[in-house]
């Protein structure tokens, strides 16, 4: 073999091997993006489409709804058909228009109530988790535990009943205040496990300060948990708003599905043959809550790859 001078493939030297390695690295599969994972789940897909419909309805309310929700100038108790697709209420408002305009309220409450509860839960959970074992953690954990065990419904009812303002923002504030605790608990637990990871210690050695470490190293690891928490909180907020309104404790300025139910129940809608009045806001509400829950199934797939292989 040595007598043959022509060596067609010289053994690779170190530089060649490094290049081959770089090329191999170039070809690494990045894996699907988060939206592809979400979209791959049938449930989440249905949820996204459904939620999209609601958002569209809310945005296009002025176009879709034939009348204003608070316009009571029609003949009362008209049965569905003709001018009024779903009939009119006992006060002479168009039910279909009320339903469409009500979507806005529910979505706004869901979005901001969810955001508010998530933000409070995140801040308190992260802080107490990062300072685990110190008095800061003791105080915040105590607060969280108290918030968890306080019976929420009586608390909300009391707060709402004694409040002077009855705006939608006040409702959002109250809902946010009562629903952050569970989220704070789970964020605290995750923070504690992440805080002791080597890459956090490494960031300390790299000279990063605590806020940078939390924002750049730890928070991104929590994204899917935070997102799941948000959708959970939004679902809760929408339900709570409807519940409060149904009890007559909602905002009095605008029409929501909750106030529709409240009015329908108060005016004996069924007895007057206006079952549509009672039925549609309930259906719309369940549809929206279902959409959010379905989306959360998809978010589970992002945080737990093992689930992606099931059904």
């Amino acid at each position, binding site marked *: 073999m040595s007598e043959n001078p022509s060596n067609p493939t010289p*053994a690779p030297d170190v530089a060649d091997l490094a290049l081959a390695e770089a090329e*191999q*690295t170039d070809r690494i599969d990045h894996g699907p993006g988060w939206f592809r994972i979400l979209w791959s789940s049938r449930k989440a897909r249905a949820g996204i489409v459904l939620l999209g419909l609601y958002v569209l309805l809310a945005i296009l309310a002025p176009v879709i709804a034939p009348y204003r929700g608070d316009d009571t100038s029609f003949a009362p108790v008209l049965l569905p058909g003709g001018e009024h697709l779903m009939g009119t209420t006992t006060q002479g408002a168009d039910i279909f228009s009320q339903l469409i305009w009500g979507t806005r309220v529910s979505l706004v409450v869901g979005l901001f109530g969810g955001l508010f509860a998530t933000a409070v839960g995140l801040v308190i959970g992260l802080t107490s988790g990062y300072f685990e074992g110190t008095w800061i953690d003791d105080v915040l954990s105590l607060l969280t535990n108290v918030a968890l065990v306080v019976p929420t419904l009586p608390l909300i009812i009391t707060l709402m009943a004694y409040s002077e303002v009855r705006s939608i923002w006040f409702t959002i504030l109250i809902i946010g205040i009562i629903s952050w605790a569970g989220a704070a608990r789970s964020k605290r637990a995750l923070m504690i496990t992440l805080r002791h990871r080597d*890459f956090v210690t490494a960031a300390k*050695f790299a000279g990063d300060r605590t806020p940078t470490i939390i924002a750049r190293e730890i928070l*991104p690891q929590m994204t899917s948990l935070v997102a799941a928490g948000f959708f959970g909180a939004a679902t809760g907020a929408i339900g709570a708003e409807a519940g409060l309104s149904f009890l007559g404790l909602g905002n009095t300025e605008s029409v929501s599905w909750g106030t529709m139910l409240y009015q329908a129940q108060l005016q004996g809608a069924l007895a007057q043959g206006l079952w549509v009045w009672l039925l549609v806001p309930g259906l719309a509400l369940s549809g929206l809550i279902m959409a959010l829950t379905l989306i959360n199934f998809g978010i589970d797939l992002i945080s737990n790859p093992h689930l992606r292989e099931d059904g």
Partner: protein
Amino acid sequence: MDRHASAPDDVTPILEVEDLTVRYAPKLHPALDAVDHVSFSIRPGEFVGLIGESGSGKSTLGTAVLRLTERPGSITGGTIRFDGMDITSMSQEELRPYRWRDFSTVFQSSMNALNPVVRVEDQFRDAIELHSSRRGGEVVERIKELFDLVLIDHRFIRAYPHELSGGMKQRVNLALALANDPKFVLLDEPTTGLDVVVQRSILEGVRRLQAEQGFAVLFISHDIGTVMDLSDRILVMYAGRIVEEHDTDDLLREPLHPYTKGLLGSYGDPRQETVRITYVPGRPPDLSQPLQGCPFAPRCPERIDRCLTDAPPLVEMPTTRTEGAVTALRLDAAGTWRPPRAACHVALLQRTEPGTPGLPERTVRFAGPAFEKSVGETTEALRGEVLLDVADVTKVFSSRQGLRRRETLAVDGVSFQLRRGMVTALVGQSGSGKSTLARMITGVDRPTSGSITFHGRQGPVDVGTLGGSGLRGYRSLVQMVFQDPYSSLNPNKTLEYILSRPLRNHRQMGRAELGAAIDELLERVALTPARRYRSRHAFELSGGQRQRVVIARALAAEPELIIADEPISSLDVSIRAEVLDLLQRLVADSDVGILYITHDLLSARMLADDVVVLNQGRVAEHGIAIDVIRDPQDEYTRRLLDAIPNPFADIYKP
């Protein structure tokens, strides 16, 4: 037993795998064959080792053989015959009577395989009563027998799993696997994560039991040295295929596949005059991409043209042992010896057509890059100024249990000095206090008594009293290389971001300088060409590449002291030397001091000038590396030396 009649000269294999393919088809990723047309067989009572880098498909093959493959994986081709019976497509219910009676296993994560709320005795009872007619007292007798086999005191029979130490749990698992006298046991990395000395004693126990009881074993491990020490025959796996099958002794004398040579090259005897360990650069191929030619070709130092185009089949190879004596051996081959097989064009051509143009020389060593250290290069005396002075340091941990306080002495009066431009190795098994010492040196913990003084360029620093901003300043001088590169790099950050943090924070670099500095760091740790790596995420890199990034990050701060805490123990053996080589070059190129923490005296010999052996928090032995290793004074040091797997011990006597 009639089925033997057709082949009277051979024994029915206990396990026969033919053309087995296991395919992973996740929904959102491209499908890949983790096990690709694999065939092998194991005879009753045979001890077979299966080696390969992580990701080579070893464990997938192991689980498939037991029919435990889980979604998204599935067996898509081939057959598995157990004791002559085809189990490839049996239902789980049909398999149940055979499991744990005829074949059993000790898993990789066996530490968690015992039910924590059930007493050990009851777990044995379940396994024994299900598969045998033993009841009551007989079962207890059997458990006692099994505990004797694995050398555990009978009083632990009534214990709960959490009352056992890690090593004991693993031995209990082994005893459990043997409870019903199985014919075949699969050991899948059964001692990974255990202490070296404990590991040694367990594996020696396995081998003794196997010899006594005569069950067959398939032993999967990435710890090639241990596999070599124990096995009769070795299967080498690469990219889902078996690339070599060879009797252990012959394999050590004449490895056929260059990959096998690369794996073997990672071992050496630290006591020898010159220690040379090689490494296989690069990484295994991505199996979801179509492969052309031999999967090992891109990393192979012996490749020829044909390797890049044709995939070599796994064929029988004539070796030195068989050449000239083939007929004699064939006649003798009543099941005791079988010719080696390998999938390599070069090895085959070298043996069949040695005149082929372009064929490299026949070699038993891996012809790739190596890290070599001879006695001459090793320090004979310590020079350089003292960088770190650890003086009589003691650390006591106290925990409260009810009203009583319990105190644990983790580090007890340890003193040593570390000099600029030198490597001091801190050697000991787990629990010896070496990590506690590292935590104190980095300022994470404070010593209970004694002092740690760092003599940096900006004057001496008393590490034990640092807090807040002082600690931040200190950390720009002292950096850390972590054990596990999978957990010490945030998987979602780009290398650019990871490396920019210390540059910005410790060296106050602005955006303009960053780019060049990052490239320089990447080049320094051999991640070249740097521009192709800058925007990579940590999760895209292999273990070795990741560890190089971790080293680059430690270098970014231009530290005076680097603490490397077991930097190679979580890497594949085939790439360990590369990281050692890198660390060695760092010391040579700059006057940084390295504190190298390890349990492995071979790597300490390769890297360190100075060795401190720790045992139960005390210094057992301290001296120049080569003296300590070649002439250990302490019994404990000798025990650590004996625990180093050395497959070549019987072959190449010094």
